[in-house]
């Protein structure tokens, strides 16, 4: 595995993605998702909303890192908030 040059932050990143996917699977088994229409222009399932929030989180991080001098934690905080909003009302 040394060729993959793991670092602690990236390991945490991928573990949390894996944990999210596992969590979504368990959630799906216990209460299957119902497609609904929120404030997004399309009707979405739970998985769609997670995908949208992860993709937007990526762009939020790029924006903060690339074009502001704010800490990356600010981007992460905004992303978590956005994820919660999206999962609830998206």
């Amino acid at each position, binding site marked *: 595995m040394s060729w993959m*040059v793991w670092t602690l932050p990236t390991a945490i990143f991928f573990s949390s993605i894996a944990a999210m996917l596992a969590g979504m699977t368990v959630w799906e088994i216990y209460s299957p998702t119902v497609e609904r229409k929120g404030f997004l222009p399309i009707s979405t399932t739970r998985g769609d909303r997670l995908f949208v929030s992860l993709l937007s989180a990526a762009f939020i991080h790029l924006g903060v890192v690339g074009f502001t001098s704010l800490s990356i934690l600010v981007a992460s905080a905004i992303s978590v908030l956005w994820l919660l909003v999206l999962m609830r009302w998206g």
Partner: protein
Amino acid sequence: MNNKVYNNRAWLLVLPMLVLVAFSAIIPLMTVVNYSVQDVLGPHASFFTGTEWFRTMLNDPALQTAFGRQILFSLTILAIQIPLGIGIALIMPKQGWQASAVLILITLPLLIPWNVVGSIWQIFTRGDIGLMGWSLREIGIEYNITRNAGDAWFTIILMDVWHWTPLVAMLCYSGLRSIPEAYYQAARIDRASKWAVFRYIQLPKLTNVLVIAVLLRFMHSFMIYAEPFVLTGGGPGSSTTFLSQSLATMAIGQQDLGPSAAFSIIYFLVILLVSWVFYTTIMHMQKDKTPQGGA
């Protein structure tokens, strides 16, 4: 309403594919992410750099210009190829041997490997031995793709139109063929003009294939590499250097693994976003299909 019991064990059948994709795509992609936050000098010498590469890449003027150039290129070829493809599909013969002959002729450019297309056009546009370059020179037009950025752009766009419009035309042709004759009969009874038939029958029926055509053409033109690389090598200067060529120069030419990993991720995210938007649009259109879908 929906009392179907889903048997999720079928997912196990996807497992071999998942293993394969993990091996060929997911694990390499994770490695790229790891590289993007480090300065990797060798197998046991790497330094953690955090988000520095991302900041450098996003603020690199050369890459920003290449990105703008890339968008401009994709939009230009879409604006030409989509209407042209529809037009060609409309005038293609509908049946008989002519239909097959035209189909074969029109498909030929699609069968040529990409770097060969580049070579063909490279020779075709040369002033000394190329037919197009020579003819333009003989009638007194200053034309040189190695010296003049405008000529290089014009040639790359012309080459892409030549290479890929047939794909759009074929998709549209198949879309047009699937319109039932009854629609045209009804239009004739109403004495609809040719334009009205196109606007209210043919174009709405083409929406689905057009979305696919736009998606395919956008994706490919956004990742274009071989043709401009062979034709102009990105020049003159860097006037036709597109994103994938910048990436290849950085990763393979200069061995800047960290920055090029960061750049790949940004590139990947843009492509992922665009594909997702297109995919959602397609799926959405099919879901919300009303019997009298107007536009």
